């Protein structure tokens, strides 16, 4: 290609791309020019002078910074000349003049660019004998990161990352000359959600992980490729262990998924692994109390308990609940066990059949980065998927992609230009109808009768036109609109708009749970088989029966809430794996108590586990092998990195033991003895996974194709949404949603992060004033069902007339409030 040019370095001709930076061109030719400030993921700056080389110019040779010099045909450079070497040596000498050289107690020692470059390019001896400057050595930037200003070499990487990627410029370079320091604005905390990436970026030990500090020397660590399971993005991690114990998580580059970034939850929130509260042995209810028993005994009890119910009440009295947080292997085997051995289709997970969501997730994460328009409906990427949010921010800032937001809260992404709507709960369909009408009009298409009355405002017209004209829009909706009362109507209404705009095939759903796509892929749904095949599909059923060696019942089963509700009726036994319905809604307790037999398999003794007849201790995903399918359908492997706690066992292994004992005559179909082998079976059960294997997933994972599952989307009228009545005293509309810093089981176990959570119910300033309430006042939020007491947070980010209670708050689970209108109920708010 004409793009290739020739440059000369130290007399050697090399091929380079026109306009690329000299550092990049040289690296391709095997010349690694040392850098500090330059980083491939950050804009060039030229601040540190480490990369000086000589360049042939019109007036002779001059020193230039290689990291900021784009190359052009015929340019001549000297990297190894005496002057260039001297210059670099000088730079290092000046950096080292005030560097504390406390390598023996520095977390970075052993993987430090300054050490490496001092070895390679340093003078070996210093001209300086003056005392070194002293600055802050132990300066916390937040609860998570600590800065050592003496070790800092002022490369600006941390400053640039926060600005260029997260668009939260919270660090700066203050003062000047030798007084220069990195600092935050006085009185503020570093609270960016992906702040930990600056630890990975810092070339020296100036920024360190406060939670992992002083617990390892880098060279003794074992590295294991894993992924993060805190959200549906599936960011790639490297888990560093010593003595089979996790010491830290760092980001692992995967350009298709997370680039080189992870969020602070993925990096720091791993305390659940070593929590004192982890279950370490099986428990069984003996004389009314949960008491430790052996694994063989526990398995025997589970088998007998389930069999007893099946014999007395039939297989339809048993149900299995899995989890979108657990691996494909675990969920697949639970489904297989229930269908093939117990003989019931009562299987589901919380975000399973109840979610009116696009099962395929989003078109691709790369699409988010390439977008020329961003449409976000009922999702908050900043809180639910911070790394994705960063991609969207970059598209907004660097590609000038307008951002259309439709959300009950003024979410962070509304800071970018575009059109933002904040419909109250219940008003969404009307907005989408208007957008649909405007889109049809913009494309010169007929508007059906049922849309004739929709009112098209100027803003609606603007948003509709933007989408109609977009070439490459990234369009997602989220749980807020797809889960609970009325979601079928809202989802059809928003689908109408996207279809009417001509982008029907780009509408994606943001699955916020790590394996929400995978759990459905492997068929943990009451009416669907693995591979999104209908239960009614006889051919698919027969194939599966061959693979499983048993008949599959044809009658669709009960879903998640159906099973729990029927615990007072026809359901007599439940097997709950990695889910805590009682923690979410305490009134579920009396239902589960009515069961004849309850098995709970979990990391912790959850509220639900406390009611169980048998509690099985599960190993966490870090302590077992497993695959997870992220929100772009990418199947990724997380390899075992740490030793399981106590006697806990991987979920898949527990199920395998139980199945073999449950049906010894079927043992041939339950022989698999490793997670990769279970995955191999999954690839035969799930057509979209055909051809994959544990090995083929490799370091990058493998997505199944968007069109490997056909989905028809049509413009169609839908059932009108009847919003919950606003009547005294229930005069506020409830809104819910996920915040990154929640107080859920896995997160709260990292004690050092406990302060980050912000436990509060939010009100608009006008409403707070109307009720004479102040920030921090204890308020009661009461529905027809229950009441919660929470401190008040006043925020103009929500609409007047609404109260926002985030999910997963400790001792205040918003689920308690849900009545027949689910998360869209109306509530009373008053001083507690």
């Amino acid at each position, binding site marked *: 290609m004409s793009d290739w040019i020739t440059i000369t370095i130290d007399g050697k001709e090399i091929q380079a791309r026109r306009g690329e930076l000299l550092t990049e061109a040289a690296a391709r030719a095997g010349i690694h020019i040392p850098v500090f400030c330059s980083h491939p993921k950050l804009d060039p700056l030229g601040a540190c002078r480490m990369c000086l080389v000589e360049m042939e110019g019109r007036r002779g040779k001059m020193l230039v910074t290689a990291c900021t010099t784009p190359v052009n045909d015929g340019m001549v450079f000297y990297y190894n000349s005496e002057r260039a070497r001297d210059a670099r040596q000088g730079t290092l000498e000046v950096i080292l003049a005030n560097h504390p050289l406390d390598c023996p107690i520095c977390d970075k020692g052993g993987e430090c660019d300054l050490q490496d470059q001092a070895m390679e390019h340093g003078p070996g001896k210093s001209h300086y004998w003056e005392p070194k400057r002293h600055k802050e050595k132990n300066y916390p930037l937040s609860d998570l990161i600590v800065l050592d200003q003496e070790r800092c070499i002022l490369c600006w990487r941390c400053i640039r990352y926060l*600005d260029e990627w997260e668009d939260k*410029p*919270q*660090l*700066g*370079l*203050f*003062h*000047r000359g030798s007084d220069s320091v990195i*600092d*935050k*604005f*006085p*009185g*503020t905390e570093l609270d960016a959600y992906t702040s930990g990436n600056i630890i990975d970026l810092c070339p020296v030990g100036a920024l360190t992980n406060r939670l992992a500090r002083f617990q390892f020397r880098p060279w003794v660590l074992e590295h294991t490729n894993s992924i993060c399971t805190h959200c549906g993005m599936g960011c790639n991690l490297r888990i560093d262990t010593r003595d089979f114990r996790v010491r830290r998580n760092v980001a692992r580059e995967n350009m298709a998924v997370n680039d080189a970034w992870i969020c602070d939850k993925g990096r720091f929130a791993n305390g659940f692994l070593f929590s004192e509260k982890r279950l370490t042995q099986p428990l069984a209810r003996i004389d009314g109390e949960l008491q430790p028993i052996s694994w063989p005994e526990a398995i025997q009890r589970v088998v007998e308990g389930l069999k007893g119910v099946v014999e007395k009440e039939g297989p339809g009295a048993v149900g299995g609940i899995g989890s979108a947080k657990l691996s494909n292997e675990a969920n697949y085997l639970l489904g297989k066990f229930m269908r093939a051995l117990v003989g019931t289709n009562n299987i589901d997970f919380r975000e399973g059949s109840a979610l009116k969501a696009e099962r395929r997730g989003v078109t691709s994460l790369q699409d988010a980065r390439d977008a020329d328009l961003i449409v976000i409906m009922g999702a908050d990427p900043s809180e639910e998927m911070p790394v994705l949010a960063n991609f969207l921010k970059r598209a907004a800032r660097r590609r000038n992609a307008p951002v259309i937001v439709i959300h009950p809260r003024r979410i962070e992404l509304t800071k970018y230009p575009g059109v933002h709507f904040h419909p109250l709960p219940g008003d969404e369909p009307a907005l989408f109808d208007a957008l649909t009408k405007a889109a049809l009009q913009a494309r010169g298409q007929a508007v059906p009768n049922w849309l004739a009355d929709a009112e098209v405002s100027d803003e609606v017209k603007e948003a509709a036109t933007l989408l109609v004209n977009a070439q490459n829009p990234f369009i997602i909706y989220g749980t807020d609109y797809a889960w609970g009362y009325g979601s079928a109507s809202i989802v059809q209404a928003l689908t109408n708009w996207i279809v009417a705009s001509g982008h029907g095939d780009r509408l994606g759903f943001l699955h916020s749970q790590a394996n929400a796509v995978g759990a459905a892929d492997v068929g943990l749904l009451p009416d669907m088989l693995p591979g999104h095949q209908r239960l009614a599909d006889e051919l698919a059923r027969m194939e599966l029966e061959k693979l499983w060696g048993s008949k599959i019942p044809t009658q669709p089963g009960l879903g998640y809430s159906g099973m729990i509700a029927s615990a007072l009726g026809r359901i007599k036994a439940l097997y709950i794996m990695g889910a805590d319905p009682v923690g979410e809604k305490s009134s579920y307790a009396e239902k589960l108590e009515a069961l004849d037999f309850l098995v709970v398999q979990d990391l912790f003794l959850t509220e639900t586990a406390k009611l169980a007849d048998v509690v099985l201790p599960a190993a966490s995903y870090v302590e077992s092998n497993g695959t997870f399918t992220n929100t772009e359908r990418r199947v990724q492997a997380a390899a075992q990195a740490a030793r399981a706690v106590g006697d806990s066992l991987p979920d898949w292994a527990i199920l395998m033991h139980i199945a073999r004992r449950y049906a010894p005559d079927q043992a041939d179909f339950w022989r698999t003895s490793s997670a990769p082998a279970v995955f191999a079976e999954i690839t035969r059960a799930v057509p979209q996974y055909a051809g994959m294997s544990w090995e083929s997933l490799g370091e990058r994972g493998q997505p199944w194709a968007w069109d490997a599952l056909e989905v028809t989307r049509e413009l169609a009228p839908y059932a009108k949404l009847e919003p919950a009545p606003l009547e005294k005293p229930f005069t506020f509309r409830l809104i819910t949603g996920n915040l990154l810093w929640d107080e859920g089981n896995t997160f709260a176990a990292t004690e050092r992060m406990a302060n980050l959570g912000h436990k509060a119910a939010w009100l608009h300033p006008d409403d707070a004033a109307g009720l004479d309430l102040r920030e921090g006042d204890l308020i009661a939020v009461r529905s027809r069902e229950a009441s919660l007491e929470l401190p008040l947070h006043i925020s103009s980010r929500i609409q007047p007339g609404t109260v926002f209670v985030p999910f997963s708050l400790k001792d205040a689970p918003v689920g308690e409030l849900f009545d027949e209108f689910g998360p869209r109920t109306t509530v009373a708010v008053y001083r507690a």
Partner: protein
Amino acid sequence: MTSDQTLALEPDQERALQTLMRRYRGRGQSALLPMLHEVQAITGWVDEPTARAVAHTLGIPEIEVHNVLTFYTLFYTEPVGKRVIRVCNDIACVLAGNGELIQRLAEELGVDPETGGTSADSRFTLELHPCLGHCERAPFLMLDEEPMGPVAPDQVPDLLGGVS
């Protein structure tokens, strides 16, 4: 480094500041330096809330304002006297005997001659500076923006007394 104190402004200063803020609204990064000069001319020094207000007025990150405030020594992030005396403490002035001048100034103001400081009545701040670029007038000082030199120690009382 940065003061925990905040500005206590007179009503007319407050008004002047508000007018200034209106004038600079939304003008972005390039207006930062001129704006800070104007702000400081009204307030004497720039406290945290004012720095924040400047950022919000211009529509730029707070951190940028702080970068600039701490980079230029002509900006103050701590209370300073009504008038600032900057005495040169560089080689030409040292050779011309600025030691006595500094000593005298420090005595009159009751501050440390090694570091300078602000007089108890907040009327003056004494600062020691690297070369002020008027070596031919050594020992040299600047009273606010006004260059003076050579200055003899016994001129100090007049100098201080002549200032309102």
